[in-house]
Structures are given as C-alpha cells and as structure tokens.
C-alpha cells in the first residue's frame, strides 16, 4: 500500500469516528449508503478487472512494446496511444516498460502517448463510466483525452 492509500484510510477512519461521536444515526445511514454504493458498483468493477486481465493475457505489455518499436515515429505514437486505451496497467509495470521503450530507441513521443492514454482513457472502464456519468460525458471525455494525449506526446517530442 502506498503512503497515499494509507493516508486516505487514516483520514477516513478519523472522520468516521468524528461522525459517529456527533451523530450515531446519521453515521449508520452513511455506512448503509457506502455499502449500497459498493453493491451497485461491485459487479461492474469486477467485469472491468477481468477484462483488463484478459487483455493483458492476450496482449502482454512486452509484445505491445515490440509492435510499437517496429513502426516509424508517428505511426508508433498513434499505435502507442491506441494500445494505451485498451488497457489499464499499474504504474509500477508501466514506468519500467516505458523506460525500456524510450531506451530501445522508440523515442519519447510514443512512450508519452502510451503513458497518458494508459491511465486516462479506458475502453475497459467505458461501460462503468457510462453507467455513472452517461454516454455523452463518457465519449466526450475519452475522445478529448485521447486527442490531448497525442498533443502532449508531440509537444514532449519537441521540447525534450
């Protein structure tokens, strides 16, 4: 558990104790609400997780970097961004991978594109996001994030 996760746990538990001291009934209602939210999302989150697991099994990160490194710079950037959208990879795997990508001569642009879409754009999380925020919001946010991921990548390529 990283320090921020721990901090969120500590803060929440402290708030919960305060809440309980101040109003027992309201706190009970609150916990019920939390449970209700959890129940509402649990199945969808599991679906997201198993989709990511499947995508990573069919298309392991190493293979992605192999495919990307064979393309020319601009094709590689867009391909990297596209690969980034279909999966969510935890940072501790993503950064070493991007380190090797950049080191293997793929260049900064595809690496940045991959990194940005990896976390911000989600095909796997799309159904969940749609359920929570509606179709219009989800499409707009994901499309814009994708476009800006490429813009950020290009700008990084120019400045570094």
């Amino acid at each position, binding site marked *: 558990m990283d320090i921020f*996760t721990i901090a969120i746990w500590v803060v929440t538990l402290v708030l919960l104790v305060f809440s309980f001291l101040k109003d027992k009934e309201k706190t009970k209602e609150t916990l019920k609400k939390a449970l209700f939210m959890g129940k509402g999302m649990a199945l969808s989150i599991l679906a997201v997780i198993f989709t990511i697991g499947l995508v990573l099994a069919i298309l392991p990160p190493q293979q992605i970097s192999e495919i990307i490194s064979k393309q020319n710079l601009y094709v590689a950037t867009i391909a990297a961004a596209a690969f980034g959208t279909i999966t969510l990879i935890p940072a501790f795997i993503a950064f070493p991978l991007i380190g090797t990508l950049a080191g293997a001569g793929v260049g*900064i642009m595809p690496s940045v594109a991959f990194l940005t879409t990896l976390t911000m754009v989600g095909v796997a999380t799309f159904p969940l996001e749609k359920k929570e925020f509606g179709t219009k*919001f989800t499409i707009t946010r994901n499309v814009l994030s994708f476009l800006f991921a490429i813009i950020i990548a290009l700008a990084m390529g120019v400045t570094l």
Partner: protein
Amino acid sequence: MTKAIKFIKSNLFLTSVIFAYAVLALINPQIGLQGAKNSGYYIKEMLMIMPVIFVLTALLDSWVPKRTIIRYLGKEAKTKGVVLSFVLGSISAGPIYAAFPFCVMLHKKGASIKNVVIILSSWAVVKIPMLLNEAKFLGFKFMITRWILTVISILIFSWITAKIVKDEDLPQEELRLKKGVYLNKTACMGCTVCTRMYPALFQMDGKRAMVKEYNYLDMKLLQKAIEACPVKAIEYI
C-alpha cells in the same frame, strides 16, 4: 427465469466478460488462466482502495452541505474551483474508476462538469505517487515537462467538455436507498402520461415528470402509470 434474464440485461458487460472467459477456457485454457491470474493483482488493488473510497464518499455526502460544494467546486468557483480540483485529484490513490463514485457524488451536490473532469483526469495521470515513480524511472526533467503539459491540456479539455456536455446529460437518478417510487429523469421524455393518469403523485417539472412528496400510494394507479410509461422510466422498489 425472468430474474436471470433481468440480471443479464442489467449486467450485459459482466455477462459478456464471463462469456469471453468461457469461450477461452474451451479453445485456449492457458490464456484464460493467465487472464484470471492477471486479474488477481487488480482485485487486490481494488480491495485496498474501493471500500475506503465508498465510505469517504458517503461521509462527505452526509456531512458537507450542498452550498459548500457549490461554493468551492461549482460553476462560480472559477480559479479556486480549478485549483481545488487539481489538488483533490493529485492527492488521490487508486485507478481512475475509484474516482467515479466520488465525482458522481460531487456533481450531484453541485460541482461543475469542468471541475469533475479535472478531478477525474488528474486522478488518472498527475497524482503525486505516480509522479514520484515517473521521476525515478524516466528522470525528473521528463516528469516535470509531462506534468506541465498535462495540466495545461486538462485545463483546455475540461473547458471544452463543459461546453459540450451539460448537467442534464449526466444520469439524474437519486440514490435508491429507501423503498418507494423512482422516476428516471434521463429516460423521461415528458409525454405527461403519468401526470394525467396519477396527478396526485406525478407532476411536470419543466419538460420532465417528477415524483411529488407522498404519504400514501394507490398501488393500482401506480401500477397503471408504470405500465403506461412509454420509456419505462417509473420504478417502484
């Protein structure tokens, strides 16, 4: 049987994932197994963060008044709202979907679409634990350049999103905590069938119907209204 169909219908995504695994188990069990194994890590990651996110979200929902959220994260919050949104997103933990329930709650309490997008996006790409890792593997210069460019991009596209998406485009359903009558305002197309059939319970709220305060329900009338609604927007739980 109908219950199973209802479950499949409301969990179409989950059903197709289970189906995909079932097919894989038949044609290529190894990949299916690898997929399940990969998922293990993500399940751990989720269990570490989701319970606490739900509790924290519910706590803020119970204790922070709507006007406070509107003042700090609403449309009129301007720069203050933008800065606060970046801070909230940056000190977060967990994958982007952990931000979903949190942001839905904030939006329901009056946070603007622009600020919701900023929180979601910075939760995904500029949170501090991630930046530290990035500096370690890719160098400080790389990290800081990407951070600056990303923050600028988020500012621009959150503004664009707010121009395209309006508050009404987000699902308006209330939390279904209690038993009672619920009306899905996103589905409602304002045909007025329900308000004419059961005027004591339904009334028009602009272009859409809403449920009035009630102490007593005429179940026969309600059932008729539920069946008559052309878009099946009324529910009784």
